Structure formats: structure tokens, C-alpha cells
């Protein structure tokens, strides 16, 4: 009996899924967001191919050159090529965003499922999440990053922790709803183990909302990384990150506006594309919410 309950939806889901992907690619916001983020990722991966310059190479005699054919985005106070630095900055920003996504996603999925499955410690977990959530994420991350010291890994750790509580709430809410469904109850009655119920029923049903949430987290994490680096507790120079290029360019913003203009546009584009993706995925998984209404 449990076999029927488990395999039936899977059989239906396979043909539906391929059609779903096609429908998703007909969503304009999804396509725009998808194209931008793929282009940015490719630019980050192939940074050494796209630009032959060294992001850290200082050529004082070329300092503060305005954007031109030779220097697409101009040069900074050390004569470094801003275009190359923005390209290499993409690596850091996308890496931080993606790592935070994966880390906080895994942690919130596990904690959320534990809260759903082991009702006794649910209260304790949720109070801890309430405590973490009472801080705006950027402040919490600032405190943790400050304690861990400035480095890429501490930024990832700080932001992951900061975004865990929201994810746990989402997984827990979805999990609690699924748990009450008849097919989960019948699986329970027919003797399916707790592990089987979690992996076969609860987790798959939490994945949709979590995926939408993580798309937004990707965007927030990149913005927060830039903010932390700007405040000086994130990625440290000479390593280029979009945030610290802006921080360094800030002092010369009046005369050499290009140094801080282009990395800002890059962050905005990246975050915009992920927000578009998240909105589209949300619409798609819950059509009732179409258009935010």
C-alpha cells in the first residue's frame, strides 16, 4: 500500500516536469534573469580568457584613466584595470552567494526537518531561530564576521548563519503541512520508517519553497557581501570583490566616478537577475500568487 502511495505521484510527475521546464522558459522574467546570471557566471569563469590583464597589476603611470578602448571601465588609483577587477570580483561575489545558498540551504533543510520530525525539540530550535531572526541579517552577519576576522570563509559563514532562520521557518511550515496529509499518514501506518518519510515525502515537498527562498538568498548574500566588504569586515584588498572595489573607489568618486560605478552596476545586475528568477519560480510553483496578488 505504501508503495502505491509513493510511486503514484512519481509516475505522473515525470512527463509533467519536462513540460514544466518548457513553461518556465516561456516566462519572460525567468528568461531575462536566467540569461543575465548565466552570462555573469561565464564571465567569472572565463575571466582570464576575457581579459589578459592582471587584476592586481599596478601601473601608476596609467592611474585614473577614464573609460576608453584600452581600459573599458577605466583604471583606479593604482592604475589597475577596473574591467579586469570587476571580472575577478564576479568570481568572489558569485562564489560567496552560491556558498551561502548551499550552506544555509543545507542547514535550514536539516534543522527544519528535525523540528518537524522531533516535536520535542521543535520549541528549542524555533526559539533559537527567533533569537537569530530578531537581528536584521546584515547586523548579525556584521557581528559574526567581525568575530571570525575578515576572510572569504568567514563572510560565507556569517551570512549563512544570518540566513538560516528564515529558511528553517519555510521548511518547517511546509513540512508541518505535508505531515498532516493523508498519504504521509498512510505511509506511517503501513510502517514506513521515519527516515523514509522524511526523504520520500517531507523533503521533496519542502524543496519548492526552499528553492525559491534560496534564489533570493543568493541575491541578498551578494548584496550583503558587498556591504560587509564596503564596511571593511568582508573581503580584504588586494583581492577584488565588487564591494571593496566600490569602497576603494569611494574616496575618488567625484573625479574618477568609473571606479565605483561599474562594480555597482555589476552587483545590481546580478542581484536583479536572481530576484527575477526567484519571482518567476515563486509564480510558477504557486500560481495563486501570480503577479504578487
Amino acid at each position, binding site marked *: 500500500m505504501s508503495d502505491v502511495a509513493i510511486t503514484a505521484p512519481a509516475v505522473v510527475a515525470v512527463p509533467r516536469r519536462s513540460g514544466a521546464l518548457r513553461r518556465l522558459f516561456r516566462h519572460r522574467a525567468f528568461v531575462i534573469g536566467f540569461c543575465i546570471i548565466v552570462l555573469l557566471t561565464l564571465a567569472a569563469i572565463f575571466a582570464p580568457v576575457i581579459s589578459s590583464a592582471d587584476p592586481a597589476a599596478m601601473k601608476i603611470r596609467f592611474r585614473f584613466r577614464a573609460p576608453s578602448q584600452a581600459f573599458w571601465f577605466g583604471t583606479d588609483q593604482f592604475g589597475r584595470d577596473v574591467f579586469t577587477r570587476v571580472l575577478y570580483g564576479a568570481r568572489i561575489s558569485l562564489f560567496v552567494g552560491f556558498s551561502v545558498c548551499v550552506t544555509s540551504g543545507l542547514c535550514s533543510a536539516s534543522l527544519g526537518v528535525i523540528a518537524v520530525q522531533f516535536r520535542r525539540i521543535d520549541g528549542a530550535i524555533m526559539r533559537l531561530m527567533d533569537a537569530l531572526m530578531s*537581528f536584521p541579517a546584515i547586523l548579525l552577519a556584521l557581528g559574526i564576521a567581525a568575530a571570525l576576522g575578515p576572510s572569504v570563509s568567514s563572510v560565507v559563514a556569517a551570512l549563512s548563519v544570518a540566513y538560516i532562520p528564515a529558511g528553517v521557518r519555510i521548511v518547517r511550515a511546509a513540512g508541518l503541512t505535508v505531515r498532516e496529509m493523508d498519504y504521509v499518514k498512510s505511509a506511517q501506518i503501513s510502517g514506513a520508517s521515519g527516515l523514509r518519510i522524511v526523504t520520500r515525502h517531507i523533503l521533496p515537498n519542502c524543496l519548492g519553497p526552499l528553492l525559491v527562498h534560496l534564489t533570493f538568498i543568493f541575491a541578498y548574500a551578494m548584496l550583503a557581501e558587498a556591504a560587509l566588504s564596503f564596511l571593511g569586515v568582508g573581503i580584504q584588498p588586494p583581492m577584488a570583490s565588487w564591494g571593496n572595489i566600490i569602497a576603494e573607489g569611494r574616496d575618488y568618486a567625484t573625479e574618477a566616478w568609473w571606479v565605483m560605478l561599474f562594480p555597482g552596476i555589476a*552587483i545590481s545586475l546580478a542581484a536583479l537577475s536572481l530576484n527575477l528568477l526567484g519571482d518567476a519560480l515563486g509564480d510558477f510553483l504557486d500560481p495563486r500568487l501570480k503577479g504578487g496578488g
Partner: protein
Amino acid sequence: MIRIIAVKLLQAVPVILIISILAFLLLSLLPGDPAVIIAGEQASPAAIAHVREQLGLDRPYVEQIAIWLFNLAHGNFGASLILNQSVLSAVGERLPVTLSLAALSLSFTIPTGVFLGSLAACYRRRWIDAAVMTIALLGVSVPAFWVAILGVVLFSVRLGWVPSSGFVPLSKGIGPWFASMVLPALILSLFQIGFLARMTRAAMLDVLSQDYIRTARAKGMSEWQTVGKHALRNALIMIITTAGILLSAAIGGSVIIEQVFALPGIGRMVVQAIMARDYPLVQGTMLILGFAFVIINLFADVLYSLADPRVRHE
């Protein structure tokens, strides 16, 4: 009503306790010996021992937590290492700057956000709706500090409309105070208007599809009255739930905005404390902010049940 407040207060107690312990653990996150890190690499063994003793780091862990909680219960949030001041007085000194920034920005955000959100809901799927939703999308995509720097370059340096940085206290007159705060507050609110407009739009769309709105229209009430009197009032209840988030976000956002405009608020103090390795100040400030956020959320919850009788009788 009193019961609701009591229950909410009781729920806040464990959260406050957890925040206190988390703030304590913040110092133990430091890689290596906190005493060495705080005193500095070149400090003499005597200086390190002094810091260790001063912070009670030589005692057992459990005892440290007990002392920490005991001090907190007595309103002692620790003392700054560099400011020669207790954390509480340091925060108290800078609180007016941060709060006035948050308050001024909210005074821009709330009317604009509610207005734009209602407009978008009334003209759903028209260009106004699209424009408002685009503003909302940009608000969560563009980095605030970047726009702040661009704002300084444009309005202070190029156009010279407002001073580029620095804070003028309210006691020096409303005009100069406003001039020093208006640009940071506007930029801060720019990033919240979108969020509030989106919330308002969703709430308004929900209300506008109700039967009593159709009745109001059917009995010949003007559109202005239907939307203003019936729809907006009911939507406001849902909008109030975002009040806590808005205020917390305004304080959180001011950390970064203060840095750009060199406003001597709490955010700037925390960042300076981090740079100076003044960890007790960071720890104490985070803790006070944590308490403040718990109280803000509590207040928003109570406000919500005050505004909506249905919540009260649940």
C-alpha cells in the same frame, strides 16, 4: 488584550535569554585567545594577563556565563576598551542619531509606500503597477551604500544642495539638522518604499476582491470613497504587521548609511569598534540592539492585535 500582551512577553523571555548567551559566545568565536587578540599581538604578557583578568577570561566557562548574565540583569552591559565609557552610555550617546535617521526615513517611507502600493493595486496590470513593481524590484537589487555614494557625489559635491557628511544635532536648529539628515534618510527610505509598496499592493488586492467592496461599489459609492474608506482601512491591518520589519530594517540599514555619511550613530560606532578590536563594545552593542529588536517585534505584535479584533479573539 492584557492576556495577549502577557503571553507575548512570556514568549520573549527565552528569546532574550538566548540572545544574551549568543552575545556572550560571540567573543569565543575569535580565533585564538581573546585576551591576546584584544590586547594586540605585541602586548606584554602582563598586559595580556590584565585584559584576561579584566574580562574574567581566566575563570571557568560556566562561571563566565553566570557572571555575564548576572551583570546583564543589573543593567551592566560591559565597558568599552577604547572609549573609556560603559557600553550603555556609549550606545545612549549615539542612539539619537540612529533613531532620528530611522524615524525621518520612515516618515518618508510609510506615506509614499502605502500610496504607491494602493495605486498599483487600483491600476493593476497598467503601467503604474509595472512602474511600482519595478521600483520594488530595484529596491532589493541595488546596493544601498552604492546609491548613497552616488547621491553624495550628485547632490552634495556637484549640486551643493546639502552638506556631504557630518551630523548637526536637533538642538542646533531644525533647518541645519534636517539638511544633514535629509539625504541619508531619503536614500534609506528609497530601499524600503519598494518593500512596503509590494506589501500594500498585495494587501489591497486581497481586500479589493472582497464582497463588501463590490457592495460598496454597487450602492453607488464613489471609487475614491470605496478605496479610501473600505479597502485601505482593512488593508492597513495587514500593513501594520510589517511595521516591526520596517523599523528593524531601517535601523539595520542605517548601519551602512551612517558609514557613508559619517553620521556618529550606533552603526558607525560598531564598525569603528570592530576595526579597533574593541570586542566588549561590539558584544554589548549587539546585545542592546538585540533586546531593542525583540521589543520592537513585541510592540508590532501588540499593535496588530489592537488594530484587528479578529486576532484578539483568536
